């Protein structure tokens, strides 16, 4: 699906390129692509307790990913990758909004997220909220998550990539799980300009 997305991004970019000199028509959104931030509709709470909606993201490039604090392997790995990328980019990322959206709002309250995120780069913001609002957010990103019962407890399957958006809300690209920093950092640089 991620490979398919890459192709779709390429073809949409191609269509935009072709159409640009002829018409100013809006290119229809590919149903497999994440929506632009401007077309999203959700309201979540950040780890400091403030309400955040898609409108709050406009004006700054965004890096967002889905995860949960009970996740022992994928999520700390992604958070570490992101912390390393931010460190490598230094002051270039000052304007970047970096967000972890919890797919486990049942356990991830704002206080739990705050506690968890204190271990990573302080620029990473945690978002949580009602299950229906998290579902609306996931739908906007064309992301997926599901709860799986396990040994009297549960775990979550979830989209593992990191989504990148331009400051005006256009979807830019996805950094795949554990993608080599040689590819990840140029992708991030592209939304910073």
């Amino acid at each position: 699906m991620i490979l398919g997305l890459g192709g779709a991004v390429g073809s949409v970019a191609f269509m935009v390129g072709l159409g640009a000199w002829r018409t100013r028509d809006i290119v229809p959104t590919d149903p497999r692509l994440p929506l632009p931030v401007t077309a999203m509709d959700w309201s979540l709470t950040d780890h400091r307790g403030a309400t955040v909606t898609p409108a709050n993201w406009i004006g700054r490039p965004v890096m967002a990913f889905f995860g949960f604090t009970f996740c022992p392997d994928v999520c700390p790995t992604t958070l570490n990758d992101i912390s390393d990328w931010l460190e490598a980019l230094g002051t270039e990322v000052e304007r970047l909004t970096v967000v972890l959206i919890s797919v486990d709002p049942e356990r991830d309250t704002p206080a739990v997220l705050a506690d968890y995120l204190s271990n990573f780069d302080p620029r990473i913001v945690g978002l949580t909220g009602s299950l229906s609002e998290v579902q609306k957010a996931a739908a906007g990103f064309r992301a997926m998550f599901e709860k799986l019962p396990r040994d009297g407890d549960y775990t979550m399957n979830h989209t593992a990539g990191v989504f990148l958006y331009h400051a005006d809300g256009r979807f830019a690209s996805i950094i795949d799980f554990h993608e080599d920093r040689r590819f990840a950092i140029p992708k991030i640089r592209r939304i910073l300009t």
Partner: protein
Amino acid sequence: MKHLIPALLVLMAATPALACETYTVGDLTIEHAWSRATIGAGRPAVFYVEITNAGSVDDALVSIASPAAASPMLHETVVTDGIASMPHAMSIPVPAGQTLNLAPGGYHGMLMGLTTALNEGDSFPMTLTFQKAGDVTVNVEVLSLRAEGPDCVHAGQ
């Protein structure tokens, strides 16, 4: 001056962390056993290790057990179509002449039901059971939540 050299040697011997200890059972060498600090005891911890099979017979890691956690399990992080899932691994192959890495983003032990929160600098024992080589107990070093692995400098490297 005379005392300086022994003092340095003691210091150097003390520097390599627990995770850098090497254990052997049969043809298997087990090293780099580490975990990440947890926030409280309510969240699962993780277990990573490196197992080298110098023998000519394939083996497999079939279970892990530790007094630190009520239900340690072997898992594999699998990313399919961009979706991460964590299926239970019944048995992880350790083929002859190869090294199996339980490492971030792949195979790992998931330690549910922690007895206590794991803090950086702690260590706990972990018994690994192999299909052929049997049991071996190793010390697992708890590194920071930000750690990507132990920093080991091996003699001769």
